[in-house]
């Protein structure tokens, strides 16, 4: 089972994890990314490419499922204006094996950072805005799965 959602709505980690666990397996890994308070961040605005996003996330989920024995994959990515502490992204994977669940969850996050068409713009407490730049460490993390 693959579930992909993109939109402004928040998600419920408990119920999403429960949905994945109902697909069987017994090993459920999840990752939640939130707007991190680094001192004077006010809001983060998530822009995306609607025509491409759903397709990109679906491909990422299917690549994960072809690489690991997974019963279920859920990817939820929010867009729009988010405040410090708010949820941005949720990935949940379910497998018979903890290694498969954890590794595939990590793989999906690395792909989301480098392939999925989202862009983040931060607004500081003083009103200054800045588009967040892609990080070399994210590219390196995504590369390591290509071995």
């Amino acid at each position, binding site marked *: 089972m693959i579930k992909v959602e993109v939109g402004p709505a928040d998600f419920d980690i408990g119920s999403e994890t429960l949905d994945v666990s109902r697909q069987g397996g017994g090993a459920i890994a999840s990752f939640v990314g939130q707007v991190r308070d680094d001192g004077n961040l006010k809001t983060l605005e998530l822009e995306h*490419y609607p025509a491409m996003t759903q397709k990109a996330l679906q491909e990422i989920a299917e690549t994960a499922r072809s690489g690991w024995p997974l019963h279920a994959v859920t990817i939820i990515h929010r867009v729009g204006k988010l405040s410090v502490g708010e949820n941005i992204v949720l990935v949940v994977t379910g497998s018979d094996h903890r290694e498969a669940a954890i590794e595939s969850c990590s793989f999906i996050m690395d792909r989301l950072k480098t392939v999925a068409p989202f862009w983040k713009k931060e607004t500081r407490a003083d009103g200054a805005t800045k588009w967040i730049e892609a990080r070399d460490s994210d590219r390196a993390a995504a590369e390591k799965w290509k071995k």
Partner: protein
Amino acid sequence: MNRSINLVYFAWVRERLGRDEETIRLGEEVGTIGDVLDILKARGTAYAEVLSDSEKLRFALDQDYGTAASTIGSARELAIFPPVTGG
């Protein structure tokens, strides 16, 4: 043959060009994404500046990633945007 393609822009590309999409006609001589970039850069300062460094840009043809060397073919939509920063 007269072809046209829809251009869509995101993030600082969109902001700096002051538009999120536009449709342009492509002549016979236009084969690749790089050719489209050349047409746009010839239009004026804003385009020339924003599109000058294709290393800092990413492209998608009909929602699949491509490079400056990718052939336009019968694609209907070309997206130009900065490296993604989701997740």
